[in-house]
């Protein structure tokens, strides 16, 4: 059958040396994170320009945002980064149950973040504040929206990794997917670390 032919003729002729595969995968993920920085970068650039042009708009309109909810979300994400990092250490020490639980907590935090944002957006819409209300809110919705999309993608990816972790697919010798998932998740946290003060703490 076609599929079997492909496997037999490619997959196993030159298995990559595990160390090369590990360092290649990590480099690949860091490169990908670089692209994410450039993607969000455009939004940060737009923010910088419009904030410099309309400082009063930003000062005034950001008051509509709920600083406390933003701070809670920041704490949720930072905590989730902690649990993701400890998950990696757990896998590297061969503790699959612990690792799986840590990833689960990370996912729960991510979902919590989503729930908070759901209420935030809901509150905005009920006050008739939409992406086209003003430049400030365009930025708010675009930046947090794109960020939220990345959170969702991260949750799906982490979900898969969590299941595999519980199944024991990762251990001291092979923890690459968990590490890569962790790197991605930390980036999501990093971006929010900047979004929070820029949008919620204008003055």
């Amino acid at each position, binding site marked *: 059958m076609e599929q079997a032919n492909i496997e037999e003729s490619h997959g196993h002729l030159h298995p990559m040396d595990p160390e090369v595969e590990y360092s*290649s995968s990590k480099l690949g993920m860091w490169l990908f994170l670089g692209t994410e920085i450039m993607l969000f970068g455009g939004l940060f650039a737009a923010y910088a320009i419009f904030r410099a042009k309309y400082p009063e708009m930003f000062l005034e309109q950001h008051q509509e945002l709920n600083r406390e909810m933003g701070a809670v979300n920041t704490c949720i994400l930072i905590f989730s980064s902690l649990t993701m990092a400890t998950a990696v250490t757990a896998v590297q020490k061969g503790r699959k149950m612990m690792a799986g639980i840590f990833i689960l907590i990370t996912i729960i935090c991510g979902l919590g973040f989503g729930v908070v944002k759901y209420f935030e957006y809901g509150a905005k819409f009920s006050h008739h504040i939409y992406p086209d209300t003003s430049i400030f809110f365009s930025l708010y919705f675009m930046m947090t929206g794109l960020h939220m999309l990345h959170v969702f993608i991260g949750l799906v990816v982490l979900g898969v990794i969590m299941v595999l972790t519980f199944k024991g697919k990762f251990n001291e010798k092979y923890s690459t997917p968990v590490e890569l998932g962790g790197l991605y998740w930390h980036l999501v946290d990093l971006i929010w670390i900047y979004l929070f003060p820029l949008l919620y703490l204008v003055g």
Partner: protein
Amino acid sequence: MANHTIATNVYVPFLEKKGFLSWFLTTDHKRIGILYLVSISLFFLIAGIIALLMRFELMTPAADFVSPHTYNVLFTLHGSLMVFFFIVPGLAASFGNFLIPLMIGAPDVAFPKLNLGSYWIYIAGTIIVLFALLQPADTGWTFYTPYSATTDTDVILITFGVFVLGFSSILTGLNFIVTIHKMRAPGMTWHRLPLFIWASYATAILQLLATPVVGITLLLLIAERSLGVGFFDPAKGGDPVLFQNFFWFYSHPAVYIMIIPAMGVISEIIPVFSRKPIFGYKAIAYSSLGIAFISFLVWAHHMFTSGISEVAATIFSFLTFLVAIPTAIKVFNWIATLYKGSIELHSAMLYALGFIFLFTIGGLTGVFLGALAADIHLHDTYFVVAHMHYVMIGGTVMGFFGAIHFWYPKWFGKMFNESVAKLSWFLVFVGFNVTFFPQFFLGIQGMPRRYATYPEEFQSLMALSTYGSWLLGLGVLIMTVNLLKGLFSGEKAPQNPYGSLSLEWQVPSPPPHENFEEIPHVTDWTYGYGKKKEVDA
């Protein structure tokens, strides 16, 4: 140099296995290279035919063949297909895929499945754009606001298609960077790498880091059209020039994505057909990185007449002149390589020599455009059209055709008719110059680009340009037929018909699936032509 033997009883050329799935689900970089080659060539031919239609309309001053609106659609399609579906993936996706692992002595790229994914993402992007043809955009391939935010044609779909294509470019760049860093054969130090690899590496960095910026720009345009977001709309406090700043932050490096691999190809062809080591290897290698780096610094030279500040314009004009330096370094080194070489005018060499001449014209006219005072007059005229086609056709396409003719025996295991190849080169070369050289004069005389109608006094040069396009089209047609014919009835190709020292020529033609029976141990520089074996890099 490479220590392996060809055991004919186990040699299975990578082209051997048949069946759709073995092609569409392949993770073999050589097959993926062919998938890209076929796809981009198809778009090249389609977009080329659109250009012939445009030139046909432009034979007469009136819009008598197509309406002005249709003409706008035509140049938008020509530009979008050529830029996003042919030339950006271009040499990188086709020849980069085929050659990089072979040249560095690796069995495949770092992430073969991702490589396949990149191809299908590219195809997804093209399909989305095909749907966009139902209500095709008339904005030009640069999608400038405010027109692109307000026109009723389907801008969202076409820009989304381009956005998807961007992912393909990013992932290919990522794959190549990791491959070149991590998978070089033992002994293949950075300074023994073929120059095509240096060029591919520099290109991959641009693909990786510049493309996301156009990604977000197009997303913002889509948001502007669908959500009423106002970043580019002055009525809402936005700035249409901001779109241009973001767009060109990618699109200027993009033009170097287009040209740097072609320069890499030239660096490979010239030494082989001069039987001399490449002159100034390190200078050429580092100049690729230099061009890539500087390319990030010059984007607003596309915007001198858009209303940017004089301060910004002056800075960008100065930086633009800088990019000529690493480019010139390459040209001088190629010429120095040719000097006192034993030149063989194989068709691939003809394309390489054509490149040097034509790209020099294209590059220099770019410097003219970089001069503020000149650009005020020349911006958006046919001078720009001529400049860009000299670098893109005279540069990239010459490199592309040269690469096809050079590596054809290696890739397909067949030989094409060399005399017909020379003839088609001649028609392409002459046809191209007749088409585009007059356009420099049209531009200086004030003929604007993207106009279907024009004043009577421009007609003779416009008509001449159209006749040239027919000659160019004929040359491409003959070349295509010749190359296709060779696939079916050409002679079987020897392993190394040109006596190249590069690793890809040390394996059979076509290469076996796994490339090398044993990973080679490299002890030599790639360019030791006409000298004793041990050449110190």
